[in-house]
Every structure is written in structure tokens, then in C-alpha cells.
């Protein structure tokens, strides 16, 4: 088991290198630091000197891959690639284009992101499974049919609609919860409720429908018939057998997103004014702050790979037939 995890971690390194090279190519080769400087300075202030000054200030005035003027190992280290891309492997994200330390921002913004993302994940999973089990319990009846139709309708509605409608009706018209904002501790609960509610609603259509097909696939299997034959009640069959076995494919989908919860949700956070990593990213995209976008790409890929490894481990834990070697 330990050896397996170690090997998987080692396997992750080439993938992260690939991500790094790809983002490097996107940000520095296709799009040179000169272009970035021009974009940041705006049309009015573009002069060759201003561009040079901007590049020096942000450390983009070095050669891309190989510094021929330097000596020794500095030939490789005193380059844009080493200082801006390779440094990310030790989680050295550097400074954003407006001069703040990205690593510091990430650490302080993780909390608010998790405060929304974790409840959304947990409640969403619970709600989806409950809804799916209900439909499976009433399978092949009109309740099931209309449940599926409702799911299709729910998943055909844009996620932006849930947010805007939730804010308008619940917060503005009925004044039940604040429209947006965030506070730490128990006081923050009233700020968290609406985004969580809205996000769970937005996910329930596709989630419940997907889980329903998983459960239906299980329910056609022999062991379920055996369980019924020995006189178990339908409820018991569903919870003790179908749910337990259906959890395996559900786990694959759920565990892989678990580490990504740190990143928060772009849209939800920006609509509800939550100072998390999602709104940080969206602000960076809108301000065209390439340093932050680059850092978030790397962080996201890293967390995704962690999620893949966790999925494998959870497989072996949930399904004794799976042996990691």
C-alpha cells in the first residue's frame, strides 16, 4: 500500500512537469512578457521604457530558458522559466502583478472557500443520494418518471439562474438572508446558508439522475434478488445492499473533487462576495493578472492529482476486491 502510494506520487511528478511546461508555453512563449506589459500598462502609457520598467519590476526582464550572460548554474536559474515556473514545485508562487505575495493570499483565502465548498459537497452528496434512492424506491411508477423529468428540467437551468433567483427572492424580496458578504466564526453562518442552498439546488438535477442510474444498475444484479428472496424488506435491500455497492462508483466521482474543494467555486464566490480562492481567481482573470492565474493552474492540477490518488485508495477501502499493488 505504502509502496503504491509512493509510486503514484512519483508518477505525479512528470504530469506536474507537463502542466508546468504547458502553462509556461501559454504564458511566456505564445504571449511574450512584452505583450503582458502592454496589456497591463494600457494603451496610453505604452512606451519602450515603460515596458522595460514593468518587466524589471515584475522580474520578467530575464531570458526565457537559458541565460547566456550568467555563469555556472545561474545560466539556468537566472531565467524566467526557473524563477516563475519551476519555483512552483516548492510552492513558491512569487508575487502577483500588483505586488502581493500569492502564497500568503492562498493561505488566508482557503478558509472562506472551504466554509462554502465543504457544506455544499456534504449536503449535496446527501441530497443527491436521498433523491436518487427515493426515485429508485418508486421505480417504474409515475413518481419515478416525473422525478427523472424534474431532474432533466433542473439540470437544463443555468447555474447562474439559481444564484440570481436565490439572491433576488430570498435575500432581496423576502429579506431572509444577506445578499452577499462573509464573516468568520458562528456569525458567518447566515452568510454561508444562501450560497450553500443555491449550489446544492444547482447540482441536484444531474447528480440525482446520475446516482439513480448507478443504483438501477445495481438493483438488477443477482445479489439483490437473493437478498429479496431471503425475505429482506425493500428498504433494507436498498440501504444495506444497493446503497453500499452503489457507493463504489459514487466514491470515484466524489473523492476526486475533494482536494479541489480548496479552490472554491469561481461563480458562487464572486456572486456572494466571499473572499475565497474562487473569487481571487476570478478577480485575477478579470484584471488579467497572469501570475495569479499561473499559480492557480498549478495548484489546481496538483490538487487534482492528489484527488486521483485518494480515489484509488478509497477504492481499495470501499471494495475489498480491489487490491493496490
Amino acid at each position, binding site marked *: 500500500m505504502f509502496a503504491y502510494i509512493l509510486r503514484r506520487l512519483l508518477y505525479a511528478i512528470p*504530469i506536474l512537469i507537463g502542466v508546468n511546461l504547458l502553462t509556461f508555453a*501559454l*504564458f511566456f512563449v505564445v504571449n511574450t512578457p512584452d505583450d503582458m506589459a502592454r496589456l497591463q500598462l494600457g494603451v496610453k502609457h505604452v512606451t519602450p521604457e515603460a515596458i522595460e520598467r514593468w518587466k524589471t519590476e515584475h522580474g520578467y526582464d530575464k531570458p526565457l530558458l537559458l541565460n547566456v550572460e550568467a555563469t555556472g548554474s545561474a545560466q539556468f536559474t537566472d531565467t524566467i522559466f526557473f524563477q516563475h515556473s519551476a519555483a512552483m514545485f516548492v510552492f513558491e508562487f512569487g508575487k502577483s502583478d500588483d505586488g502581493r505575495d500569492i502564497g500568503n493570499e492562498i493561505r488566508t483565502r482557503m478558509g472562506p472557500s472551504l466554509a462554502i465548498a465543504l457544506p455544499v459537497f456534504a449536503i449535496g452528496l446527501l441530497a443527491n443520494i436521498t433523491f436518487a434512492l427515493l426515485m429508485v424506491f418508486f421505480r417504474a411508477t409515475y413518481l419515478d418518471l416525473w422525478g427523472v423529468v424534474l431532474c432533466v428540467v433542473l439540470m437544463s437551468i*443555468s447555474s447562474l439562474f439559481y444564484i440570481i433567483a436565490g439572491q433576488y427572492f430570498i435575500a432581496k424580496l423576502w429579506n431572509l438572508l444577506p445578499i452577499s458578504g462573509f464573516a468568520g466564526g458562528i456569525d458567518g453562518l447566515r452568510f454561508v446558508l444562501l450560497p450553500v442552498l443555491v449550489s446544492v439546488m444547482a447540482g441536484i438535477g444531474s447528480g440525482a439522475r446520475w446516482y439513480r442510474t448507478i443504483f438501477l444498475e445495481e438493483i438488477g444484479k443477482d445479489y439483490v434478488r437473493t437478498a429479496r428472496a431471503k425475505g429482506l424488506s425493500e428498504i433494507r435491500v436498498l440501504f444495506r445492499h444497493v446503497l453500499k455497492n452503489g457507493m463504489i462508483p459514487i466514491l470515484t466521482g466524489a473523492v476526486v473533487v475533494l482536494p479541489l474543494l480548496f*479552490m472554491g467555486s469561481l461563480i458562487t464566490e464572486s456572486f456572494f462576495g466571499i473572499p475565497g480562492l474562487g473569487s481571487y481567481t476570478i478577480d485575477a482573470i478579470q484584471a488579467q493578472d497572469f501570475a495569479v492565474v499561473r499559480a492557480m493552474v498549478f495548484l489546481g492540477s496538483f490538487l487534482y492529482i492528489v484527488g486521483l490518488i485518494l480515489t484509488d485508495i478509497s477504492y481499495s477501502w470501499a471494495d475489498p476486491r480491489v487490491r493496490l499493488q
Partner: protein
Amino acid sequence: MSFMPVILWTDALIFALLAGVLALIWFIRRHDHLRAPWVVVAQRPMAMGAALVLGAFAVTGLLDSLHYRERLPDSQAGKPQYSVEVMSVFDALVSGLRTRQEKTYSGPLAIQLYAMEFVERNGVAVRDYPRLQYGGAHLQHAEERRADIARRTLAGAAQGALASLLLFAGLVAWQARRLKLPVGTWLARWRQGSLNWPARTLVGMMALMLMLGGAMAQLASGYHVLGTDKVGQDVLYISLKSIRTGLVIGTLTTLVTLPLAIGLGIVAGYFRGWVDDVIQYIYTVLNSIPGVLLIAAAVLIVQVYIESNPERFDTAAARADIRLLALCLIMGMTSWTGLARLLRGESLKLRTLDYVEAARAFGVSNARIISRHIFPNVFHLVLIAVVMDFSGLVLAEAVLSYVGVGVDPSMYSWGNMINGARLELAREPAVWWQLGAAFAFMFALVLAANLFADGVRDAFDPRLGGRR
């Protein structure tokens, strides 16, 4: 010539896609085993009703893809000059909607402006809601509005009903003749629903759409049916123009990366070994980057490219179009991996089957085995992926436009409508019509696409075996 045709990149691709689809239909019709699953799709009322709605959207989108530039009236005979504004056939058809622009917001079917202004009345300036320039301008008194709206709605619906009756009569005559049945027998079967296609649903749906369309057209000739936006443009017109953007994103995104997904997926599964390792590595890398961020990064870069090379695009439409195409490519880049992985798994399975082994024993080349034996047997997966992805992509466009990395801000799209109307609900009284229209149109398209996709998947997925 009084106009110059303009073929934008996405126009060319859309018509190439249309030609491809028509060729595919022609090919499928001639092969019974390919036709069989489509016959199953055609028997599902839900799927066919959805297909009809999709068809209406598609016609609008296609008409909106025939672009041209009008000749300027004051240009000389020898040296024609053309307007910089790129128009489409659809614009010409609904020119009334396009040109009747008000000053600012006005509600759906309103005859007065949303905001108060000083107006002259009997020689005195008073603050009041001024009458609209076009919306309800034919009315003498404001009190006539309700009656006029009711009359127009009824008239339009009646015209729609009449048109559908005529269509239905044509259908009955044609079908009865084709099946050599008396008209009465066919009608009885139609009423019982015992024909081998969901004729009741389709006829009902068609009538409903025609009546709705007729009422809309009647109302639109005198009012702004869905109100006007901040600069006074008709919201119905914007919503209709956005259809093309939604369709382009939903279809071209999968289309442009389909060769990549099919090629790499099959090759990885078929050849295994190092080829498989390399391809798997590529898609794991692409997959591990969060989709929105990769799209954002790439769109920012495209934006920089367009801004630093303005001389390559002669009109604003061409610029917006190239950005739309780039967005499709980029979104495709992040979404082809799923299909490639699926095709790889399927090819791994197929390559061990007896008929592939036999082909190899006969010395058939790898290229021929892939094209004759592997590809036709994974084609249903490709088809399912294309129809299933469509609705997700249409929805994604709205989110991306909100983030600011979607289509060009000058382009009509539901995402841009929502983005522009972000703060309108905070006004007092709330301006809800632009948001409502964007969401309603998007919902109609996505719901129809989802229902149709379900029908296709059920018919083509052998795992489901006909059960739902």
C-alpha cells in the same frame, strides 16, 4: 451587386457541418443496420418533440449565418464601397425588430418608457413616463393597449392555427396516399396513436409552435414583446440573435476536436505500448488543469493576439467571430479527453475480438483495420458524446461570459445578456425582462437538447438494451 457576401470562419464551419450531417443522413438511410437505432429514436414522442424545437432553433441559427455587407448608397459605380456593418439574412427578415430602437429600458409590451422624463403637455413641462417611439405607437390612447394586445395575440394564434391546419391537411393527404389508406382510417390511427411514429405529439407540438410564433409576430409588429434593454434595443431581437452563438458553441466545440479525440483515442487503444503511454500522458496533463482556468488562460492569450494584430480583421464581426472560434477550440481542448479515454477503452476491447484478429491474420493493414473494423464499432460512442455535450457547452458559455473569458463583448449571446443585466434586478422597480428572456431561451434550447440526447443515448447505448 448591392451587397457583398461575407463568409466568417464559423459560417463556413457551420455549413460544412450541415453538409456533413446531410451526407451522414443520406448514408444512414441506405444502410438498414445503421437506420435501426434512429427508427427507435423516431418512435419516442419526447425525443421527436425536442427535435422539432431544436429544428426551429437550427433554422434561426442557419439564417443568421448567411452574412453579407450592404453597399453604401453614396459609393461610386466603378468603386463600390460596402458598409462595415456585417448583416445576416435573419437581420433582413426581422429588420423591424433591429431598427426600432427606443431611448432606454421599457417593459415587455409597454407603451411607455421605464424612466420618467420631462415631457411637454398642454404647454407645461411635467415629469411623466414618455410614450415609446415605436412600442404601441399606433395607439391613440393608452387605454386601448389591453384590447389591442389581446386582439393581436388572438389574431396571431389564429393565423398559426390556420397554418398548422393546412400543414396537417397536407400531411394527411400525403401519408394516406403513401400508405394507400383511406383518409378516415389514417386519421383514426393518428388519433389512437397507433402509427409507427409519434404523429400526435409532433402535430400538437408544431401547432403549438406555429401559434406561439404567430402571436409573437403579430405582437412584435407593434410592440417590444420582451421589452428593451439599457440602450433601447429590442430584447427579443437580442435573444434571437444569441441563438446562433449558442448553437455554434454547442456544435463546433465538439466538432473541431472530434478528429483529435477519435484519432488519439483509437490509436492509443489499438496500438497500446508506448503510443498508449504518450497519449495517456497528454490527456492526463490536460485533464489535471482545471477547465475554467485553462480556458481563461487561453482566452486571455487570444485576446492579446487579436489586440496586437488588428490589421488581420477588417470588421468588428470578423474579430468577434475569430474569438468565438478560438473559444470553441479552447473549450474543445479541455473536453476531448473524456471521449478519447472512452474510445481508448473500447478499442482495447475491440482489438482482441475474433474478427479483428482474423483481419490481422489475413495481413490487412493497421490503417484499414482501424477504419473498417474499429471506427464503425465505436461510432455510436462518438455520436452519444456529441449530443450529450451540446447542452453542457451552451450552459458553459453563459458562465464563461460572466467570468469575462467568453465570447466577444460585442457579440450577441445569452451569457453577455446575463452579464450585462447583472445589476438590473437591483433597480427599483426591478428590470427583469432581459435576464428572464436570456434564461428562458437558454432553458428552451438546453431542455430540448437534453431530451433529444436522452432519446439518442437510450437508442444507441447497447448497455441499456432498450430499457430506460
